[in-house]
């Protein structure tokens, strides 16, 4: 057993930290994290990350990567997280889509997309969820019908975050309409240019002020060579990508700045002449949060270790996902309790403590146990795939 990092990994971390401390402002980090839309500053930051060799570490050299273990990508995510950056600016392409292109895409597709993703130039948005296909994702209805050299696609997606600034849609649509097959066997994946005629995007604004979107397809023509891998295998590709997605998206380090802000606050804020940090109840709650963050970190380290060494993952990243998302809610609740009356003040209000970060997280945290698969579905996965309990 070894819970440490190698010297090379530590040296990489030092170089990376120097770069991030210089280049990553909180504003850039938040543009992505809060899905405000990646602005020119974040795009520029993304290109600089790539130019300094901090993107594509674990990817094959022939597509612009460096052929290193995935550990390096995780070090990047950890260090971004510690600076309010939940992920790299253009993260859907980088952490979710590219792995599947690498595994399942044609050579032409790999050459077309991977180098641009690694250079931090393009972004994708996921096109999975539909109004009537949430947890039961395989029941999606979006239709893709072959017509000549193209697929003709019609239907509607919802909660497609990033759709308003991504260049490409990573779209799942039904390609086999036979009523006799299980519904997950008739789905295919496509890469669709968001500028294609017939694609329209409408904003949906969340309770925490983030933008997500509905995406409508009306007779959208997508060339055959934008079908990812084999027809009707899309759902399998989505599922085989999900473990790595969880590992890359649910990083405990991104919650550290909240804890650090709270620690600073209780040391600086007094009640009846004494710092809040001396209150035993407050100490207990913050200690509990710190404990859970360390447990989350070691969960993440375990599932990342599996991924970095290309060992099979079944339910391990799901454990990490469920645990971290629920921990976020408990941490934020601790923060709101500590801030008391002041916890309700918003970022642009007078008297607001901690720049309104905790209040924003309070609103945001309702989503974490839902997005990318609810805690309930997660627990089903842990029980069924991890423990072999029978499906109902």
């Amino acid at each position: 057993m070894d819970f440490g990092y190698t010297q090379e990994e530590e040296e990489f971390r030092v170089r990376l930290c120097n770069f991030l401390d210089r280049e990553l402002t909180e504003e850039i980090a938040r543009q992505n994290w809060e899905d405000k839309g990646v602005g020119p500053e974040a795009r520029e930051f993304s290109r600089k990350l790539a130019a300094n060799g901090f993107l594509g570490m674990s990817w094959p050299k022939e597509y612009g990567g460096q052929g290193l273990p995935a550990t390096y990508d995780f070090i990047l995510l950890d260090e971004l997280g510690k600076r309010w950056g939940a992920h790299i600016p253009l993260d859907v392409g980088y952490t979710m889509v590219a792995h599947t292109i690498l595994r399942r895409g044609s050579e032409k597709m790999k050459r077309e997309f991977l180098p641009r993703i690694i250079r931090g130039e393009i972004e994708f948005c996921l096109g999975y969820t539909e109004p009537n296909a949430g947890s039961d994702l395989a029941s999606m209805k979006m239709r893709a019908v072959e017509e000549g050299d193209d697929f003709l696609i019609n239907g509607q997606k919802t909660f497609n975050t990033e759709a308003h600034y991504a260049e490409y849609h990573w779209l799942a649509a039904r390609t086999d309409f036979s009523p006799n097959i299980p519904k997950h066997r008739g789905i295919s994946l496509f890469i669709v240019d968001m500028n294609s005629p017939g694609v329209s995007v409408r904003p949906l604004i969340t309770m925490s002020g983030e933008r997500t979107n509905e995406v409508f397809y009306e007779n959208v023509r997508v060339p055959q060579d934008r079908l990812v891998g084999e027809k009707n295998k899309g759902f399998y590709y989505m599922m085989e990508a999900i473990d790595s997605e969880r590992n890359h998206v649910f990083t405990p380090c991104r919650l550290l700045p909240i804890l650090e802000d709270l620690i600073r606050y209780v040391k600086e804020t007094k009640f009846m002449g004494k710092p809040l940090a001396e209150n035993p109840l407050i100490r207990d709650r913050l200690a509990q949060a710190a404990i859970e963050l360390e447990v989350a970190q070691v969960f993440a380290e375990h599932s990342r270790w599996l991924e970095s060494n290309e060992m099979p993952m079944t339910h391990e990243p799901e454990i990490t996902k469920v645990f971290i998302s629920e921990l976020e809610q408990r941490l934020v609740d601790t923060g709101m309790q500590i801030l008391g009356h002041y916890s309700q003040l918003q970022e642009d209000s007078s008297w607001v403590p901690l720049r309104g970060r905790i209040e924003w997280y309070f609103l945001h945290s309702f989503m974490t146990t839902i997005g990318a698969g609810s805690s309930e579905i997660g627990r089903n996965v842990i029980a069924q795939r991890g423990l072999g309990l029978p499906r109902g």
Partner: protein
Amino acid sequence: MDFHFSEEQKMLRESARDFLQTECPKTFVREMEKDPKGYAPGLWRKMADLGWMGIVFPEAYGGIGGDFLDLLVLLEEMGRACLPGPFFSTVVLGGVPLLEAGSASQKEEFLSRLASGRMIMTLAHTEPVTTQFDPHLIGVKARAEENRYSINGTKLFVPDAHVADYMICVVRTEGKNDSPKGITLFLVDAQSPGIKREVLKTVARDKQCEVTFQKVKVPPGSILGRLHEGAPILEKLLQKAAVAKCAEMIGGAQFVLDMCVSYAKEREQFGKLIGTFQAVQHHCANMVLNIEGGRYITYKAAWMLSKGIPCTKFVAVAKAWVSDAYKRVAGLGHQILAGTGYMEEHDMPLYSRRAKAAELAFGDASYWKGWVAKEIGL
């Protein structure tokens, strides 16, 4: 980063599991709960023959020269089997601090006897004033007399004292009762005149004792470490004991989960296996979250301890998390096993009762959260 157990550790785990399945069935565990000694000398001898008591001691002392992680693997299996008896007291509370802080002649005198199973040891630490766990709150005093010390006072919750040959007794030789300065550790012969030992009746029916010292004479050569300066040895001992206890707890919690999963796969209600119900699946998934997190954080802390990396925070995180986690797992286990698991003859109560005892040993979650608070700068 490497979460693999070594081949030796895997073999150790397998052989320990096989051995304990045969030698330590639940009938035996229940029998030992009622037995005055609480362990079977025959089984103790067999464990010694397997080298278990000497697992962390150097070969020069008849040990097998393993490290702290090897010991944890073994303790996990012992927790799984609810192994009764003084293994933890002897090896973790007695042997480990002797190995780390003992003089050459003390090691010579004790370690080979411990490794061969010929000596049982324990730690006499907690006192009646310890209404909340606090390692430095020591009121039992040793007064210097001519050429010797005289110990007076009462120690409580001393595990296995009734069968111990020697105890490390934590006493005050100087300073105020809650001061780390002035604590001294004595190696005390349990047969010394003036020592009275009485087994307390505890929830886990483990053998925790009251030990009274009345003018118990000990020579200066029996000090472990240095006079007045026992606190650092004690702190390190308690850190290792806390993490070792975590391993035992994780082993127990894993058994509870395994038992529940098997039950959920065979028990039918409403014409279906209860394992198909999401409510039951989610209970099981929650057990997984509690156990897996506990196992990784325990081994992480143990790895740091064995490498000599400062890790007070990680020890604290591990004992705080696992103390609560095992308790939650036991609660969920009872919920799944329901009425049958509530019966005295079922295995489930063996685990829920031990979960409580282990939670309280060497500081519960509240105690260790105090350390975490300090470590994060509060």
